[in-house]
């Protein structure tokens, strides 16, 4: 807007961002604290990271979380992209209203309800809970996020590009692969990232749908957090934050390289 930001604008954005980041910064800082007490700084140390590497339960949990995240995010990306195509390009097919409802509802549905209902499904199917029930559960709610992200891009996508491809002799399915997909790829990738992060993040749905052999990292962190703050948890959290920051940075670099690429 014309006159640029006022002091009030700057202050509200600045304070808001400080509010968002301060707790995270503190958490990261205290993960390098030598002492066990979280509030007393007793020197820099990486001992909690060393302890973490020794912690087999944490390692297992991390490995399971990662695998669930990779598989469910990939499945959710395929299903979610298809859902977006159906919603945006499918016209007014029968049952579209219900379909759109099922896409939007999980975005706001309390996780406890999602978790409970999925658990009952697996019980009714006689399916022992574990890795695959958890993966299916994560696929279900993350596919809706992918669908919404891809849908937004598809709506903006110039439809005449698809028509041009068909006009030039390209059949519809090949048009999707050679013209539509390359152009909505950033949204599809963003959808995958979102699904992956949501899967890594999830505690509630996982608690309902996972079984004894498949304890995820958030579940492990949660059970320890209930016992109180510990520097080891700070270290785990710092590693997770670091991984996310790295991912975002790489994403940004790739994006920049792509836009700068000469010809």
């Amino acid at each position: 807007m014309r006159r640029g930001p006022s002091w009030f604008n700057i202050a509200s954005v600045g304070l808001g961002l400080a509010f968002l980041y301060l707790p995270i910064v503190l958490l990261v800082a205290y993960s390098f604290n030598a002492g066990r007490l979280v509030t007393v700084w007793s020197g820099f140390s990486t001992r909690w990271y060393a302890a973490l590497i020794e912690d087999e339960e944490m390692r297992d949990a991390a490995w399971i979380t990662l695998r669930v995240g990779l598989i469910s995010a990939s499945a959710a990306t395929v299903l979610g992209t298809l859902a977006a195509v159906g919603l945006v390009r499918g016209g007014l097919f029968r049952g579209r209203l219900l379909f759109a409802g099922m896409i939007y509802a999980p975005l706001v549905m309390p996780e406890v309800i999602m978790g409970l209902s999925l658990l009952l499904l697996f019980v009714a199917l006689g399916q022992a809970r574990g890795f695959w029930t958890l993966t299916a559960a994560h696929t279900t709610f993350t596919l809706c996020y992918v669908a919404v992200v891809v849908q937004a891009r598809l709506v903006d996508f110039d439809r005449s590009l698809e028509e041009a491809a068909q006009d030039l002799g390209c059949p519809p399915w090949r048009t999707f692969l050679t013209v539509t997909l390359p152009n909505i790829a950033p949204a599809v990738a963003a959808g995958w990232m979102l699904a992956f992060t949501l899967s890594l993040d999830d505690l509630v749905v996982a608690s309902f749908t996972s079984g004894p052999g498949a304890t995820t990292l958030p579940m492990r962190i949660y059970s320890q957090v209930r016992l109180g703050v510990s520097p080891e948890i700070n270290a785990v959290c710092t590693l997770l934050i670091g991984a996310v920051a790295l991912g975002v940075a790489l994403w940004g670099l790739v994006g920049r390289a792509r836009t700068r690429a000469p010809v």
Partner: protein
Amino acid sequence: MGHRSWLAAIPPYAWLLVFFLFPFVLVAKLSVSHTVLAIPPYAPTLDLSRGAAGVRDFIGGLSGDTYRRLGQDHLYLAAYLSSLKVAAISTALLLLVGYPMAYGMARASPRSRTLLLMAVILPFWTSFLIRVYAWIAILKPEGLLNLVLSWLHFGPVEILNTPTAVYIGVVYSYLPFMVLPLYAALEKLDPTLLEAAADLGATPWRAFWRVTFPLSRPGVAAGSLLCFIPIVGEFVIPDLLGGPQSLMIGRTIWTEFFANRDWPSASAVAIVLLATLTLPILAYQHQQARALEGRR
């Protein structure tokens, strides 16, 4: 793509029918069952191998007892009301914090806008659980907040395990969900509209209330619904920050389910919660669909 693009919807449609819609039928069914000491820990179960007799026994075994108990036990009612209250107050607080933030972002230069947007989204990518956990270290009695206060010669405050801690945690966790839709609405606003308002004699304050705010209303609606609905069913924040006495419905479901192993009660509570939220959820869907149509 051709007129058969709706075919693409079939796999996700089938998936959601099985993994999203059908489970709700199960929840509804379970809410009219009763607990037994067995696996699964509820009865009746539908035994189709016995044919019509199985169906008759099944239907005969259903009862509204759980709902009756829900109505009689005022603890449930208190949990519902408290959840709605927390969600309403939190949403108001989020608007209060989020609107100036989104407005400030929208007024920044295009270059810094992208950076600010990234800065708001970034915490969202880090774990929800971690962010709530970070507040424990700050708010607990011997925590960082009291450390700072004691330097400033203020008495220690007790925040952890109080409703205040829940509000702080909720506002903190949901802030990006409020700021992003607000920002999206405010960023689209044509700055010449404000110039026109000023040209027609409106003071900046009046121009804001008569032009900016009405035009940002879709963002306010989207942000409020996006926050309000999940907050009502929130579990992690009251559980970690609210202390044992904090009463919220998401926590009730969790406790009934995991601690008491009373699956029918947990289901009945969930069904009532869902019924309460149906209206806001439909409003949210309507709002989303309209926003999308508008961009076509």
